[in-house]
């Protein structure tokens, strides 16, 4: 279960849900700094395909990850309507490119289910938990894992 979830065990959690690679994901709202329209990025050499490049966020250089590619769902097709979720993790600021942002989800801690024992270790690592909303399932993204494996490549 998410550490953050345990930290505020008695409160309601707010998540922002978004879709990437046709699936719906969410991030806890406190991790998100802002949501921006897609602007062209500067590509970085010697980086994996899911690192799109870097973007200027008011003077700071932040890397942009393609979340869909990150999760092995193929590169997000270029689209004007793509959005970048700017999030903070471990003191660094990063951007996640997603197809669209949907809504704010207010859930109780008990509604977050642990990630079932699925085959792919990588996937299990990057998904902290799941929330079911109506008929659909929303995956809670583990930001730390997204950044970690992005950096882990030898340069």
């Amino acid at each position, binding site marked *: 279960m998410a550490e953050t979830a345990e930290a505020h065990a008695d409160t309601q959690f707010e998540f922002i849900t978004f879709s990437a690679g046709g699936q719906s994901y969410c991030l806890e709202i406190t991790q998100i700094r802002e949501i921006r329209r897609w602007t062209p990025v*500067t590509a970085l050499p*010697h980086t994996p395909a899911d690192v799109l490049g870097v973007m*200027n966020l008011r003077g700071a*250089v*932040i890397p942009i990850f393609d979340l869909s590619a990150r999760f092995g769902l193929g590169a997000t097709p270029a689209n004007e309507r793509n959005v970048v979720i700017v999030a903070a993790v471990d003191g660094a600021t*990063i951007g996640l490119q997603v197809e669209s942002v949907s809504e704010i989800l207010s859930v109780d801690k008990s509604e977050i289910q642990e990630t079932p024992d699925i085959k792919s270790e990588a996937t299990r690592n990057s998904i902290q938990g799941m929330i079911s909303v109506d008929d659909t399932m929303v995956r809670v993204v583990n930001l730390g894992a997204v950044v970690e494996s992005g950096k882990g*490549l030898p340069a």
Partner: protein
Amino acid sequence: MSGNSIRDTFFEECEELLEALVEGLSQMEQAPDDMEVVNAVFRSVHSIKGGAGAFALDRLVSFAHSFETVMDKVRDRDLAVDEKLMSLFHRAGDHLSDLVESARDETHLDDEAESGLIGELDSYLGDEAAAEEFSFDAVTLDFDGPAIELPSEDDSSAMRVFDIRFEPSRALYENGHEPLLILDALADLGELTVEADISRIPEFDAFDPADAFLSWHMRLASSEPETTLHEVFEFVEGLCDLDISVTTGPEEGPLTAPLDPEPSTGTEEPIAEIEAAEPQDEDPPYEGPPRERRKEPRGPKPTLRVDLDRVDRLINTVGELIINQAMISQRIEELDLPTVAHLTNELEAYKLLARDIQEGVMAIRAQPVKPLFQRMSRIVREASDATGKKAKMVTVGDSTEVDKTVIERLADPLTHMVRNAVDHGLEKPDGRDSAGKDPVGTIRLSASHRSGSVLIEISDDGAGLNRERILAKAIEKGLVPPDVELSDPEIDNLLFLPGFSTAGEVSALSGRGVGMDVVKNAVHALGGRVSITSTPGKGTTFAIVLPLTLAVMDGFVISVADQTMVIPISSILETIRPNPRDIHVVGTDSQVVSVRGSYVPIVDVADNLGLSRHDDTAGAGILLLVSTELQGLTALRVTAIHDQRQVVIKSLESNYAAIRGVSAATILGDGKIALILDPEELINLAHASGNDPFAQHSRMELRHG
């Protein structure tokens, strides 16, 4: 809280004083007779002692006292400075700085060395040592610095006549002081004659009872030292015009007479007070050369201590300002206004102003390399002691200013290199003798500004590098294949390879597990380069080239494939628009360009960054000629050069990770990010890529993406 901050201030001041001490000692070496220098040294030690006394740092006080006492004898010309004494002073200075450090960090220091040093120092004192010691004990309670009164003790019986002019200001009365009480206190010290000057009292109509009109002229015959007189006026100094001078001293009248006309009035700063007061106190009993001592404007320059964070914040903001300025310029250009003449002028002025501000802000962080160099003189001393070699250090250009961070991060590599220079560079004295050289080796440290960068050189006049041994060693360690053919510079550069440590073959001194590769990495991390030149029999020189600041640099805006990038101007020797005839293909895909008769390999930047789609054929693009240590001259091929401008360096590492071939990023006028290339790394990458499967792999991947 406040207690701590005073303590911090003391240690900060100690640092400055120690710097002055080391500087003074090295000057003493050149001119042992220059009393001004001796005084400066004495004052440093003395001020440290004074301050340490206030914080009850007894150990520091007692050592500083021994040091100071010997120094004092030199000052009085009772003791001639010879090589041995000089070396003792150096060691004492080193130990003093160790003591200050240990007091600051509250760590414990080994007593043995200290007692040895104190013993050595005391041996210079002879019989007087005991007496001095005694008088010292008597005055440690004195807050202002005990030694002030030391000499006066000897002179306690001498009666002197002081001439005192006391002219209270209005503020003195407003602060509730009463001149009569002061006069009474003076009368207690000896025989006092007072003369009031009432000439300034105005007509009754104009009389303002709150103003000060009276002044007094006094003559005091007293055996008390002058400090005691100053103590009487302690609380009103600054509120009055005070002039204390010694008119006659029965024993040494003629000598002291001309010394007087410079009293210490109104000095607020404690250090300055001690400095000002001290010569006066000590002049009469000692017949040191009095004149020079007076004209010492060497007090600390007025400075402002500012929290480094604030400066950095300011620097960041100025960086944003420069980016913003570039953006505005670009936007206005895009507007394509019909008559923009005026606007262009204003814009140009804005640009210049922004640059001025930026330079000014950078200057705040810039500091002279002097303290760093001074630290090295200690390393030279220690290293030469440990190896039984004789070495002296010469510094050139130590007022060259470099960014503070650079100075801090350069300390370790420089220490290592200086140590190496003594240990490996210099020969043993007899070896030097037979080579017809001065038995005392010279380590030369120089710093200078060179076209936007700082050049620091460490050179020795030793035997030069033993290339055969280096090569043999590299082969033995498996760093290069045994049959390799290397040019001399290439062999020299083997020293920088990781895993090449000469520790095995030499003393414990250099073998501290730090190889030259660590030095190289440290310099690289600062965006600098280190290179090596060596002449057999003449010596070896290491040159470090560093950027002036870590925040801004001048670069060419270039395009590589379809990306805009920046390359540091400092690394580029020349730009060439090549004639297709000059480009030749070597092997299957390597190209060389002929530049004035010599062939220079071409490295395609886009290719190496995995960006190219190979649509540009040979001959297209522009070549940037760069020089590197490992690969020599290389031409980097880029698609075009657009502009030359100042760019603000933004770290990639803070939010992502380091990327090979790219040193940082910057933000261009249109708000987009451009990568700043690292030419050296790019070239190394090109040479390595042939057998680096990963480089191949990532290129594939990007193409898919």
